[in-house]
C-alpha cells in the first residue's frame, strides 16, 4: 500500500521524535529529585547521593540528557533501562503489592524499561548528536 511506504519513509525521524520525548520525560523525573524542578516532591526532600533515590536521580538526569540529545544513545539507554528495571523490582515492595503493574503502581517503570531497551537496539535516528558525529 502506498500509505505504508510513505510511513516507512519517515521511520527514522519518528524514532528520533520518540527518543526526544522519552528522554525529556525521563530527565524531568530526575530533575524533580535533585533540583526540585518544576516543583519539589516531599518524598525526596533530603535526598543524598548515597541513597537509592539519589543514585536513581543522577542516572535519570545524566541518562535523560544523553538520550534527549542523542549522544551515546545505546549506552545511556541500556543503563537507564536497567535502572527502571531495578526501580520496578526493588522499590515500593512491589512483589508484595501484587504481581501486575497496574496493581503495584509500576506501569511507568516497565514502560520506560522496554521503550529504552528498544533504543539500545534501534539507535538514535537521524536527529541526534550520534548521527551528526557519524556523518563527519
Amino acid at each position: 500500500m502506498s500509505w505504508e511506504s510513505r510511513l516507512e519513509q519517515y521511520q527514522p525521524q519518528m524514532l528520533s521524535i520518540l527518543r526526544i520525548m522519552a528522554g525529556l520525560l525521563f530527565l524531568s523525573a530526575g530533575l524533580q529529585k535533585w533540583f526540585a524542578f518544576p516543583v519539589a516532591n516531599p518524598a525526596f526532600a533530603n535526598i543524598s547521593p548515597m541513597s537509592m533515590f539519589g543514585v536513581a536521580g543522577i542516572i535519570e538526569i545524566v541518562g535523560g540528557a544523553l538520550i534527549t540529545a542523542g549522544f551515546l544513545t545505546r549506552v545511556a539507554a541500556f543503563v537507564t533501562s536497567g535502572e527502571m528495571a531495578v526501580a520496578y523490582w526493588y522499590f515500593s515492595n512491589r512483589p508484595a503489592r501484587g504481581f501486575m503493574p497496574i496493581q503495584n503502581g509500576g506501569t511507568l517503570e516497565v514502560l520506560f524499561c522496554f521503550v529504552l531497551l528498544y533504543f539500545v537496539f534501534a539507535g538514535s535516528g537521524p536527529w541526534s548528536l550520534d548521527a551528526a558525529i557519524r556523518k563527519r
Partner: protein
Amino acid sequence: MLEISSAVRAAILSLVRIVIGLLFMEHGTSKYLGFPAGGHLGDPHTMSGAGGILELVGGALIVLGLFTRPVAFVLCGEMAVAYFYAHFPRNFFPVLNGGDAAVLYCFMFLLLAFLGGGSWSIDALWSNSSTQKKDRREHGAGDDHHGSHDPLGDFTR
C-alpha cells in the same frame, strides 16, 4: 560500534510491542473483566469507560500484532485525548500531572504506527505468506529479500 541486524531489531520491536500491549490491556481488563482487581468497573458511556473498550480491544490487537499500524494510530490518538482531558488541565508538566505514562504510550504507539509490528506478529505472518505466494507464482523459487526495505538500517551503526 556494533551493527544490529534488522532481523534482531524487528524481533526486539515485537518484544517491546507485546509488553506495551499487555500493560495497556491491563487497564481495559481491570475495567471490564475485573482482572487484575484494580478499581472501578467501567461504564461505556463515560469517557474512561469508552477508553476502557479501546484499551481492551486495541490492547489485545497490539499484543497479537494484528492490524498493528491502524490500531496503534487510534490508540495514540486516544492517549493524546486522555492526556489533554485528564492530565494537562492539572499542570503543564507530565511529572506533576501524572501524565508520564499517557505521553509515553502516545509516542510509542505513534512509533508502532510508523514501524509496524515487527517480526513476531500476525501481520508479519500474513505478509510473509502473501509475498511467498507471489514469489512462487512469479519466480518459481522463493527470494527472501525481495522488496524488504529497511530505512532504519542506515541509522543503526
